[in-house]
């Protein structure tokens, strides 16, 4: 009895050539199973004769359709056969043949593009680290491949990142956001009392990505990556747009509006949280079309309008969910001390900073 793969476009069937085995195709109860389950079942009640494996554990058969093909049979699986897996064909519960799907050759093409935040120093209560990859990654094994070590001693710091399933990936599976364990960051919680902050102030830590991390194709990264951060003091205060500095463009030009923040902010949130609006005499305002982009270090936002700036007053609309590197937002402190009135939250979903393009040009 010979087995072969029948490739048809992106589908693969398993063909059983039974010529020479008279009548075998017509009779019997045929099934396909991953061979590992047939030859080495782990169930306590299983009994397997090594010489002539017979499946006595009632594993369900692999989902799919059997049909006749010539003198033999053909099996079209409901879930495609997987690379590198050996499949056994069973007749009346007896393993009669097996065939292995070719494994993919290893070819490392994916790399780490960036480890963020893109700053030399982070606060002790840093909340997130993001990793940008050049291609989609396997999305369920991050904590095995990301580590934090002390730069001076090389000692690994354990329990830095929150172990969560599912992990926080973007839709393309190229950007991973890791949360530093918030229970260790928040004052007053038991994990903080027991283990302290995930990082240590005054030390330099290194975030390391190892090269074994498989991408979505199962290929390891071409090489690992690492980034060092000096750990500074904790930051626990609301983000203060009223302290920002605006480099004003001239009316009638397409010069950029540059907004400089009082501290580094979460780069990705900056892009989704700032808008330039033009005021209209009627009291309404509408978005100014254009392109805004945060500086990689999250210290500024640069906005270029699609049309020249109007001579009229404008405003910068800031969504109050905008956060800094420690999760402090415009609206609230990450873990608010209820006795500090200055930390009281801001309820509005946004706030506006009025500005006027300079009138000395155009």
């Amino acid at each position: 009895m010979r087995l072969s793969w029948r490739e048809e476009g992106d589908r693969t069937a398993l063909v059983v050539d039974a010529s020479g085995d008279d009548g075998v195709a017509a009779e019997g109860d045929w099934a396909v199973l991953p061979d590992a389950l047939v030859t080495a079942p782990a169930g306590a009640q299983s009994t397997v004769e090594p010489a002539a494996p017979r499946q006595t554990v009632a594993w369900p058969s692999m989902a799919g359709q059997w049909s006749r093909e010539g003198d033999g049979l053909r099996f079209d699986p409901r879930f495609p056969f997987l690379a590198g897996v050996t499949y056994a064909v069973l007749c009346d519960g007896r393993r009669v043949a097996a065939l292995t799907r070719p494994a993919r050759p290893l070819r490392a093409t994916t790399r780490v593009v960036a480890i963020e935040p893109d700053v030399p120093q982070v606060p002790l209560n840093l909340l997130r680290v993001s990793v940008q990859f050049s291609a989609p990654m396997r999305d369920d094994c991050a904590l095995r491949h990301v580590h934090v070590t002390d730069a001076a001693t090389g000692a690994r710091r354990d329990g830095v990142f929150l172990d969560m399933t599912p992990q926080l990936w973007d839709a393309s599976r190229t950007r991973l956001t890791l949360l530093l364990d918030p229970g260790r960051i928040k004052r007053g919680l038991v994990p903080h009392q027991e283990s302290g902050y995930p990082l240590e102030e005054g030390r330099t830590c290194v975030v390391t990505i190892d090269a074994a991390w498989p991408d979505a194709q199962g290929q390891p990264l071409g090489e690992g990556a690492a980034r060092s951060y000096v750990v500074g003091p904790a930051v626990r205060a609301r983000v203060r747009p009223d302290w920002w500095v605006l480099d004003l463009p001239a009316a009638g030009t397409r010069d950029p509006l540059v907004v400089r923040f009082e501290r580094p902010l979460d780069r990705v949130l900056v892009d989704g949280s700032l808008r330039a609006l033009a005021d209209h005499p009627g009291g309404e305002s509408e978005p100014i079309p254009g392109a805004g982009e945060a500086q990689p270090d999250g210290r500024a936002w640069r906005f270029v309008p699609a049309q020249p700036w109007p001579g009229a007053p404008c405003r910068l609309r800031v969504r109050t969910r905008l956060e800094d590197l420690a999760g402090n937002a415009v609206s609230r402190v990450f873990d608010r001390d209820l006795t500090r009135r200055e930390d009281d939250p801001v309820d509005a979903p946004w706030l506006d900073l009025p500005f006027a393009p300079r009138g000395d040009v155009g």
Partner: protein
Amino acid sequence: MSTSVNTASGATLSGMTVGTPTLASVGAITFGLGRVLFVADNQSASIVAIDVGAGAPSAPPASFDVTDLDARLAAFLGCTREQVFIRDLAVHPTTGQVYLSVMRGSGAEALPALLTVGADGAVAEVNLTGVPFARMELADAPVQGDERVEGRVVQGSREGSPYVVKADFSLQVAREPLRTVTITDLAFVDGILLVAGASNQEFSSTLRRIPFPFTGRAEAHALEIFHVSHAKWETASPIRTFVPYDGNASILASYTCTPVVHFSVEDVAAGDKITGRTVAELGGGNTPLDMVAFTRGADEYLLVSNVRHPLMKLKKSDIRQQSPLTEPHEPTGVPRENLPQEGVSKMANLGPDRVLMLQMDAHEHYHLHAYMTDTL
């Protein structure tokens, strides 16, 4: 509720269309209305409601002990045991049929599967062809009081799509592809689907309330559930898992940073910002995995499964009496009893008197066992 059941012809619930829902992934699942399976699809940041039928009540099996569940699933799905990822389980409220959401493989070849498993270990796929279903997208769903234009205003029409601001004015807007919502738990309470999730951007404790039938994005109301630790610090934090109890009057939620918090469903209906009462802290290095409630005699109990801690049992009357925690010392809060069931992750009620538990053994093999509540 405007939901109507047309039992005469195909029993299609309002708000659903008949077709074949596509799922990019499967995660948390739960039942509602006695027949609708809600499935979180995190890859596409959406929730799919599938009418699997009301079914007929059936006599519960004498026992439900499916050993080597992962091997059975691997056989059915044609993969190795290590390539089976069981994401959640739910029990059909009428038929008692056990449903599983499973991912087969990982990376680009990962495939979602919605399966049923019988007390005899038989595995079958849930039919998704020609079924009544509805889909709710979460990624860009605006929340109440949020007037942002999600995305980036761009020039020309090559990128993005038109966003109509008012009748005579529209902008070309490119959606921000970076923001995703990862759904961590679901529950259906009084016609509302409650959805807990975490975003890869802002760190908030958004609990979404989505009326069913799904009527549109604007119907998704977000609630910020704050917790106060030790009467001093208030934080928003993503909710990991939660369970309605007390006749759906209360919710017990656990946060990513470990406190177990009680809040009342009445508050959920009334306001946008809710402060819960922290009733227990489970300690460091631990992540709560799932919660389930059951009634025994005159009292109600809640079970909390954990990554590092044993399965814990809390009593409703203790939660009610627990004053907010003020001192950060373990053990804090509600008295809890550790139960002997090991490696428990997902749980579900199997009828009124049994709890079904997915358990991992020392070999990292998975088994499904039902326990009588009077033994818990």
